[in-house]
C-alpha cells in the first residue's frame, strides 16, 4: 500500500488508540520506521491520544517515587550484567507466570491426590473383598447351623413321637424272633389294636439282596394280611409306621421281590412272633 493510502487507511489512529493486535502493531511500527511520512502521522495520532489520556493525569502519592527509585537502583546492578531483551510491546495476553505457576502447583497437587485416592481405593477395595468373603463364609456356616437345628428338632420330634408310642399302654410290643434259617434276626412290632396302628422298630434283619424287600404280615386266624413293606434298616432312631391292622394273633416278615407280594412266600420267612393276649 502506498504510504499516503496507508496513512489515510486509519490504521495509525487505531494504533494510537490501542485497538490493534500485537501483529498489527508490529506491522505499523515497521512501516513507521521505514517511512518518515508515516512516522510523522503516527506520532501525531499518538500525541493526540496521549493528550487525551493526560486529561486524566493524577499525581500519585509522593512516597511512590521513593519506592520506584529504590527498585530501579536495586535492578541497576543486575541490569549492567544482563542487558534486557524484553520486547518493546508486551502482548496483551501474556502468560501470567504467577497464575501459571499456581496452576502447575494445582496440577501437581491434583496428581498427588489422584494417586493417593487410587491407593486408598485399592486398599478399601481389597478390604471390602475380604469382608465379602468372610461374610459369605459366615452366611454359609449360619445356614449349616440352621439346617442342623432343623434336623435336630425333626429328630427330636420323631423321638418324642417314638417315646409317646413306647409309653402308651395301648401299644402291645411284639417281639419277632428269627426262624431256624436266620437265628440272629429279630424285630420289634408295636401294635395298638384299638387304633389299629402298627409300628416296627429295632430292625435287625439281614441286608436284603438286590431286588428284594422285607414285607410285614399280620396273621389273623391263620390268614396272612399285608401290613406294608419295611424300609431298609439304616440305624434310624424312629419307628416306621405300617399299614393299619385291626386284629392279629401273630406278625411275620418274609423276603419278597421289591414292591411286595399279595401272598407271603413262606420259604422266605425270616422272623415271626405271637401277640401276647
Amino acid at each position, binding site marked *: 500500500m502506498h504510504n499516503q493510502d496507508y496513512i489515510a487507511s486509519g490504521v495509525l489512529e487505531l494504533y494510537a488508540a490501542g485497538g490493534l493486535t500485537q501483529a498489527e502493531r508490529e506491522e505499523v511500527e515497521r512501516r513507521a520506521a521505514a517511512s518518515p511520512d508515516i512516522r510523522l502521522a503516527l506520532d501525531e495520532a499518538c500525541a493526540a491520544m496521549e493528550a487525551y489520556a493526560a*486529561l*486524566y493525569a493524577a499525581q500519585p502519592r509522593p512516597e*511512590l517515587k521513593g519506592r520506584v527509585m529504590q527498585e530501579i537502583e536495586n535492578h541497576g546492578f543486575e541490569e549492567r550484567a544482563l542487558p534486557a531483551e524484553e520486547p518493546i510491546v508486551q502482548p496483551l495476553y501474556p502468560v501470567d507466570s504467577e497464575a501459571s505457576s499456581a496452576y502447575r502447583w494445582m496440577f501437581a497437587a491434583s496428581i498427588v491426590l489422584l494417586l493417593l485416592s487410587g491407593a486408598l481405593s485399592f486398599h478399601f477395595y481389597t478390604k471390602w473383598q475380604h469382608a465379602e468373603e468372610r461374610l459369605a463364609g459366615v452366611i454359609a456356616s449360619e445356614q449349616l447351623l440352621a439346617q442342623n437345628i432343623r434336623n435336630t428338632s425333626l429328630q427330636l420330634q420323631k423321638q418324642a413321637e417314638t417315646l409317646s408310642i413306647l409309653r402308651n399302654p395301648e401299644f402291645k410290643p411284639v417281639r419277632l424272633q428269627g426262624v431256624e434259617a436266620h437265628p440272629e434276626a429279630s424285630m420289634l412290632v408295636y401294635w395298638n389294636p384299638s387304633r389299629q396302628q402298627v409300628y416296627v422298630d429295632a430292625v435287625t434283619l439281614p441286608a436284603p439282596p438286590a431286588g428284594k424287600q422285607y414285607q410285614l404280615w399280620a396273621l389273623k386266624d391263620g390268614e396272612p394280611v399285608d401290613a406294608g413293606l419295611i424300609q431298609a434298616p439304616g440305624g434310624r432312631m424312629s419307628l416306621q409306621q405300617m399299614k393299619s391292622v385291626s386284629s392279629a394273633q401273630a406278625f411275620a416278615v418274609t423276603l419278597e421281590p421289591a414292591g411286595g407280594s399279595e401272598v407271603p412266600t413262606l420259604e422266605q420267612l425270616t422272623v415271626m412272633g405271637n401277640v401276647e393276649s
Partner: protein
Amino acid sequence: MADQQPIPKLTEEDLVSRLRARDTSAMSVLYDMYSATLYGVVLQIVKVEAIAEDVLQEAFVKIWNSFGSYDASKGRLFTWMINICRNQAIDVIRSKQHRVNNMTEDIAGSVRSGLYSDEFKPEHVGVREMLERLNPEQRQVIDLMYFEGLTQSEIAEEYNIPLGTVKTRARSAVKFLAKFFKGRA
C-alpha cells in the same frame, strides 16, 4: 501532554541517551515528567489507587530494565512508555483474581463513572466542552481500546458494531483530538 507539566525537562534525545548509559538520575527526571500522566492512565484502567501504584512501580522497573529494547526509530519514547504502563495495567484487570475482586465493585456501582467526571485538572480549560463535542459513540470506541485494552475486532464482536464502523469511529475520534490539541498547543 508531557510538556504541559511544569517540571524540569530534558529533550527526549537527552533522556534516551542518558537512559541508555544506565543513568538512574535520568529515571528520576523521567518519573517527574511523566508519572502523573502515566498514573492517571493506569488508574483509569485499574480504578483502584493501591493497584495503580503497584502497576506504575512495576511499569517503571520494566521501562528501566528493558530500556535497551526501546527503538527510537519505531516511535516516541512517551508512546513506548505509556504502552508499557497500559499493558501492565490491562494484564492486571484481565487476570482472573482481579476479575473476581471486581465483581463486587461492579455490583456496588460503576467506579469508572466517578473517575470520569471529576478527575480533570483545572488547567485543562475547555476540556469539558471538548469532550462534549467529541461524539459519544466515537469516544466509547477509543475509551474501550485505550482504557479497557480491547482490540477493534473485540469491540465489534462484544458491542455488535460492524468492524468498519469501529474503525471509522476510532479514526474520527483521534483526528478530532489531534485537531483539538493542535489548536491549543
